[in-house]
């Protein structure tokens, strides 16, 4: 009970940490969406040598992102950015790492959505004289995003669940906030329970949205 009192005392700080978690995840998912869309557009190229090379690189990138731990990816990006001489804050490199990771997953999600668009539509649009970028922007992608919207929300949940790993870079999101308060107050378990409950509320709430989106589709 003593622990609960301590946790309640620091509620404003904890909620601020939660705000940061949501902010980091939102920024990461928006950038990831751009990366994912870009990757899937680049993947559509024809069979010429340059586009085959690009496709090969993207394939390797996605495979690496999906088959290595996010924690290792965060460390690699953080160190790589430093070696490249970019003096970015931990926050920025954290967001970059999360978006590069999630971008690989989103590219795969969009690829799944693309297969659902009948080929006749792009052919019809091309027959009407629409340019390729216009076909993608006006015909294909609006439908694709509608189809994959439940998966994109699920990916947002994933990003939120991955975001505690940013605490290793000393980014003060929810988990790091809890760790700081723990070293201050010597109360451990109640803080971890509190943040687990907060994460649960956010993720379970988003899961309900996924269900609604699936029903609508």
């Amino acid at each position, binding site marked *: 009970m003593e622990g609960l009192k301590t946790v309640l005392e620091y509620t404003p700080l904890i909620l601020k940490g939660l705000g940061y978690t949501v902010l980091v995840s939102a920024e990461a998912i928006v950038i990831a969406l751009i990366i994912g869309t870009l990757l899937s557009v680049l993947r559509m190229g024809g069979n010429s040598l340059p586009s085959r090379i690009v496709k090969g690189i993207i394939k390797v990138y996605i495979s690496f992102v999906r*088959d290595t*731990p996010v924690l290792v990816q965060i460390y690699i990006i953080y160190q790589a950015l430093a070696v490249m001489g970019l003096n970015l804050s931990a926050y920025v490199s954290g967001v970059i790492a999360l978006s590069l990771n999630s971008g690989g997953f989103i590219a795969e999600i969009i690829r799944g959505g693309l297969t659902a668009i009948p080929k006749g539509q792009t052919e019809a649009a091309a027959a009407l004289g629409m340019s390729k970028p216009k076909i993608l922007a006006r015909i294909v992608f609006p439908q694709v995003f509608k189809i994959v919207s439940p998966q994109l929300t699920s990916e947002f949940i994933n990003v939120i669940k991955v975001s505690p790993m940013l605490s290793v870079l000393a980014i003060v999101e929810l988990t790091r906030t809890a760790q700081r308060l723990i070293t201050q107050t010597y109360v451990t378990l109640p803080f971890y329970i509190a943040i687990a409950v907060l994460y649960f509320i956010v993720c379970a709430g988003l899961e309900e949205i996924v269900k609604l989106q699936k029903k609508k589709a």
Partner: protein
Amino acid sequence: MNDFIHVASISLPMLLQGLSLTVEISVLSIIFAFIGGLLVGYMCISPNKLVEGIARVFIKIFRCTPFMVQVYLAYYGLPSLGINVSAFGTGVLILSLYTSAYAAVILESGVKAIPKGQYEAAAALGMPRLKILCRIILPQTIRMIVPSLTGQFVQTVKDSSILSIITVAEMTMMTKEAIGITFSPLFVYICAGVLYWALNLVIEFISGRIEKKYNRVRI
């Protein structure tokens, strides 16, 4: 170049030592999670609403909180419950529970994809419920869910890296130690990344083989 060879000669043995523990943790967790997943999945399709409810709550809790927070909770929570396990034991336990929640959902969706007529036919022949599941439903389900189950097990290998925060000396932890000696973080982290990658590619390769084999039998 000489620098890299020097760093590699120090760090690679450490990373490989960590890799062996990563493999050990992953294999144990995957086995336990598969058993746990079967159990929880079985509870999910139970006619008893209370049993089903318990399983649903279990799944919801483990799927809707970050694994890292679960690891911390287990590490600090178990001793205060009077359960004293090593960091390794805690890690395997929490990773198994976490993965079994996902495995249960995959198994359940597979079971639901089997036509209902098969249950009814088996029941009409007088087979008991458990026998219907084990002999008729499960063999077909497993065949169907090999790809999603593989994806989950790759996830398990990746998640095992988080156990480095509770002092389990798996590959990520050993990477940090190697960096402490060699002072070349980027190179050693990339080596670790490549090793994880290779491990998961092997898992995917094996799974692809299993899939092919089952598909051949089907024809």
